[in-house]
């Protein structure tokens, strides 16, 4: 279950615009004149590994870096720490609007130095030899990352990924229409015919069913998958619509057409701040949580520069932007701790905004993470079977 990390209103257009050109598999608009990675700059100071321990100061580092990103993530808000320090490095971006698309880019030989997968997809990159091991000793911000997050980026005991953004999936509901939601089962409740909204995603549907019925998500049997298919086939007519971009859900929620929907925490913040009476459920089966991570392409000639980029990605300002502007959690613990510190309210847009953010991430509930289910890694067979199940749900309508 890997969310498309976009809460921007233009996300719908972006998702689909990218979907439109997906077949072209071309690189998107580049933010820098020098597109594509180069094997270090011609200057004396490059990102090439050096034997000496003397560190080259950021402003003297030259070169260029290509990042395979989600549409919308190319804006400087997402890397202010890097942009202000590495003024002589040019960044260019390629885009993939879904995990599958990014994986496809990488499989097809994308030359991006850095890529950005979500939990559920990490194993593939390692299995296919696309990810380089991360030398965490060179990351100054690494000790800001909680161990639980570090562990998510480890495959076979090695650190292949740097966690960066995270969030929840749960049920967003209108408190004026539904008094209290304590279970994921509300998404399948015929009582709310026409006012539900599921995310258009097979693995998400399997996850929800697994939570409700207590299935082991990593070992769904063929019989269970049949039952899940039947369940969601019956659920489809109950939807106002499946949502593709979060803005679909948020618009429907604000308008009162959708009463309960599968949602990421950003949608809660967006609808809540629009004045809509909404709540973000703590279902008895537990919320779901997902993490976005950065990987470095194994054969990149810019490994050291890529490491520097990821280090700055974990910077404080970058993390605060992620939280303030896009309602995503940061892997930098200082950023999240700051939400509970009244003295730091200004860094989060004031006390009121800070409170909304605390609410969004459930930080006032100390048990929330213990009751949260983290998205497991999938095998290729599982992913294919779950998406095939979902296509059959849609085809049966």
């Amino acid at each position, binding site marked *: 279950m890997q969310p498309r990390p976009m809460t921007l209103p233009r996300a719908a257009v972006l998702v689909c615009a990218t*979907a439109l050109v997906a077949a072209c598999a071309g690189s998107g608009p580049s933010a820098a004149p020098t597109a594509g990675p180069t094997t270090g700059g011609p200057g004396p100071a490059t990102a090439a590994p050096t034997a000496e321990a003397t560190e080259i100061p950021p402003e003297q580092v030259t070169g260029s870096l290509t990042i395979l990103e989600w549409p919308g993530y190319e804006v400087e808000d997402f890397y202010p720490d890097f942009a202000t320090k590495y003024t002589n490095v040019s960044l260019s971006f390629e885009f993939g609007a879904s995990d599958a698309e990014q994986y496809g880019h990488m499989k097809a030989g994308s030359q991006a130095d850095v890529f950005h997968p979500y939990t559920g997809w990490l194993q593939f990159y390692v299995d296919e030899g696309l990810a380089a091991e991360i030398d965490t000793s060179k990351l100054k911000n690494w000790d800001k990352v909680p161990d639980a997050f570090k562990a998510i980026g480890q495959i076979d005991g090695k650190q292949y990924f740097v966690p960066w953004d995270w969030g929840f999936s749960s049920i967003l509901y209108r408190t004026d229409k539904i008094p209290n939601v304590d279970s994921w089962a509300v998404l399948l409740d015929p009582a709310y015919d026409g006012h539900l909204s599921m995310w258009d995603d097979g693995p998400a549907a399997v996850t929800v069913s697994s939570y409700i019925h207590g299935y082991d998500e990593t070992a769904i049997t063929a019989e269970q998958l049949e039952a899940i298919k039947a369940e969601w086939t019956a659920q489809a007519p109950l939807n106002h619509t499946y949502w593709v971009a979060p803005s679909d859900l948020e618009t429907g929620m604000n308008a009162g057409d959708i009463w309960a929907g599968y949602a990421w925490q950003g949608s809660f913040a967006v609808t809540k701040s629009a004045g809509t009476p909404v709540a973000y459920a703590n279902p008895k089966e537990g919320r779901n949580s997902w993490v976005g991570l950065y990987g470095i392409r194994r054969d990149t000639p810019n490994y050291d520069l890529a490491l520097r980029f990821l280090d700055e990605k974990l910077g404080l300002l970058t993390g605060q932007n992620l939280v303030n502007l896009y309602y995503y959690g940061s892997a930098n613990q200082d950023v999240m701790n700051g939400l509970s510190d009244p003295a730091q309210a200004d860094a989060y847009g004031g006390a009121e905004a800070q409170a909304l953010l605390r609410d969004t991430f459930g930080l006032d509930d100390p048990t929330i993470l213990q009751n949260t289910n983290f998205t497991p890694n999938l095998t290729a067979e599982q992913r294919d079977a779950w998406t095939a199940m979902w296509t059959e749900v849609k085809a049966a309508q």
Partner: protein
Amino acid sequence: MTTAGDTLRTGGAGRSIDPRRRTFWFLSLPAAAALLAFLILPLLFMVALSFRPDLSGQFLAPFSPTLEHYEKVAATGSYWNLLFLSTLIAFGVAAAATLAAYPLAYFLAFRAGRRAGLYLILLLVPFWTSYLLRVMAWRLMLDNSGVVNSVLDALGLIDEPLDLLYNRFAVVVTLIYVWIPFAMLPMLAAMGRIDARLHEAAADLYATPWQQLRRVTIPLSLPGVVAAFFMVFIPTVGEYVTPLLVGGAQGSMYGNIVQAFFIQAANWPLGSALSVIMLGVTLALVFVGLRVVQPRRLLAQ
């Protein structure tokens, strides 16, 4: 196609090909190269992909071909139902768009006079905006609190908003709207070729306007009508963006299934097999359609 006898000449110094012919080949080279690079090769690649077991390993490495993806599709009845439904939708959309565009083309060809060019541009202006924005605009039209429901409500015709958005109705309406100007173009071209004197002759022979239309204009513009129909029909069978945006949970088309295996799962081989099947079915339908209609014979009449 011409035979070798037409083109080959016994020239003097080993020059055996007609220079004009050579120029023709030379001039068509860029187009042919583009077609080869951007149509034929990707198609072959897609077909090859559909026989690949999975995506693991090098992209261009040899693999042992398998029919498992075709077997999987063959065994999934709902995919075939959806393909049938998508074909039906495409047929309806193509027929409606062609029908709606015919009077437009007629007006531009015979009634607009000197202003025809201006009107044509005005008709095409909306199409300078993104396809996505136009589809999104239909959301504003059909939404529960959208334009249509608001107007009906204000007129007191409805108490509850009609469910216009997020179903197949919305998909069909949006697709018809999107295709009308495109369907108009081939018919406009066909009507432009009709000799105006034929209308005068018909009038001289006391044909009523209705008879002129039925006996002169319609038969002579039929090849354009057929072209317009298939120009809409073929891409609509595989449409996926419109159902994604306005179809909701119950408005999917076959293209969405294909898309899911490329965008949501990275199962390109299965997606390719689905595409190859759709391509085959569409081509077969077009072939049968053209055999039945026989536009060339229409023209001869």
